[in-house]
């Protein structure tokens, strides 16, 4: 079996997931992992798909072409990257929230990158009225760093005035 990553973006409408997964199923594909969301008016989906060994990325593109053109989607297909070797690193959940302004995601991501913290999951959302920007990050921290150290990392000038909290995966309660 071969692993591929398929990404789809397009104007949101009913039936996108059904059409894309139906085409993948025709190729003997098995959706192993999938994330999808509406971002503004666009529907975005990324799938980790396992297909029989003889199926190439070009085959997947050809198979999805009618669906993609019919629904006006953009498509990306590429062989899955090998899982990286830091699975043993401790994970923390970071929540950053406050009044919206440009540069919050970049400020957080830059601070984390500079401290060798690896982002494994990230999403952000505007909620409420007046809107609050909420950024949620799950991250692997380097050996020798703890949740307190991570909190110091994100207490950077780019994130000044925002509220933030760090929860260690190994300290799930209180």
């Amino acid at each position: 079996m071969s692993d591929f990553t398929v990404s789809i973006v397009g104007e949101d409408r009913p039936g996108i997931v059904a059409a894309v997964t139906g085409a993948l199923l025709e190729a003997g594909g098995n959706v192993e992992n999938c994330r999808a969301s509406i971002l503004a008016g666009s529907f975005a989906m990324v799938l980790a798909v396992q297909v029989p060994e003889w199926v190439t990325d070009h085959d997947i593109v050809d198979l999805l072409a009618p669906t993609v053109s019919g629904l006006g989607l953009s498509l990306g297909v590429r062989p899955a990257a090998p899982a990286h070797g830091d699975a043993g690193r401790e994970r923390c959940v970071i929540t950053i929230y406050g009044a919206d302004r440009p540069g919050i995601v970049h400020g957080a991501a830059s601070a984390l990158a500079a401290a060798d913290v690896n982002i494994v999951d990230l999403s952000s959302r505007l909620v409420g009225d007046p809107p609050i920007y909420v950024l949620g990050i799950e991250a692997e921290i380097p050996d020798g760093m703890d949740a307190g150290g991570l909190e110091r990392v994100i207490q950077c000038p780019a994130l000044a005035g925002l509220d933030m909290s760090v929860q260690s995966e190994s300290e799930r309660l209180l």
Partner: protein
Amino acid sequence: MPRTRRARHVGAVGVRAPPLIRPVVIYPDRRLKTPCAPVRSFGAALARLARDLEDTARSFPRTTGIAAPQVGELWRACFVDCTGHPKVPEPHGPLVLVNPVLMHHSGAETGREGCLSLPEITANVERPVEIAVRFRDLAGDLREIEASGFEARVILHEMDHLDGVLILDRVRSLALDVFPRKKRSGG
């Protein structure tokens, strides 16, 4: 100018002033992120605050608790009442928890929480299932109660407010655990 007082009976306690519903502080008001000070004086001002908390909480349907910072008072006091809640078969009844301290906790359970100060969202929050909390009552007497399930969740939610902690600080995944609240119709 003195207010006109219209007394009404409240259980066996006697008469009290009409409800005083105070505006609820909404995030990003900084008072919600400020740790509160311990209550040192157990007098009329504390009793008044407790009554305001109760009256304000009761002005919202299905509200089971409110903390002092949510009405702008940065004192370690909160009001909890799970009476009549379907998830609490044996509630403690109305509780005013002053200077509460978590003495014991066990178990863990994820449940959906809302917050008067974050009115547009709900969130899945993991909390202990059983707790013991020590606190002072309005007279300043030390008390300790055990609570479980939903009532424990409410108490811990309100105690979080006293430390400037909101449900957004407790979610595990923004994508999976934070939800826009359904719009209420009418009103």
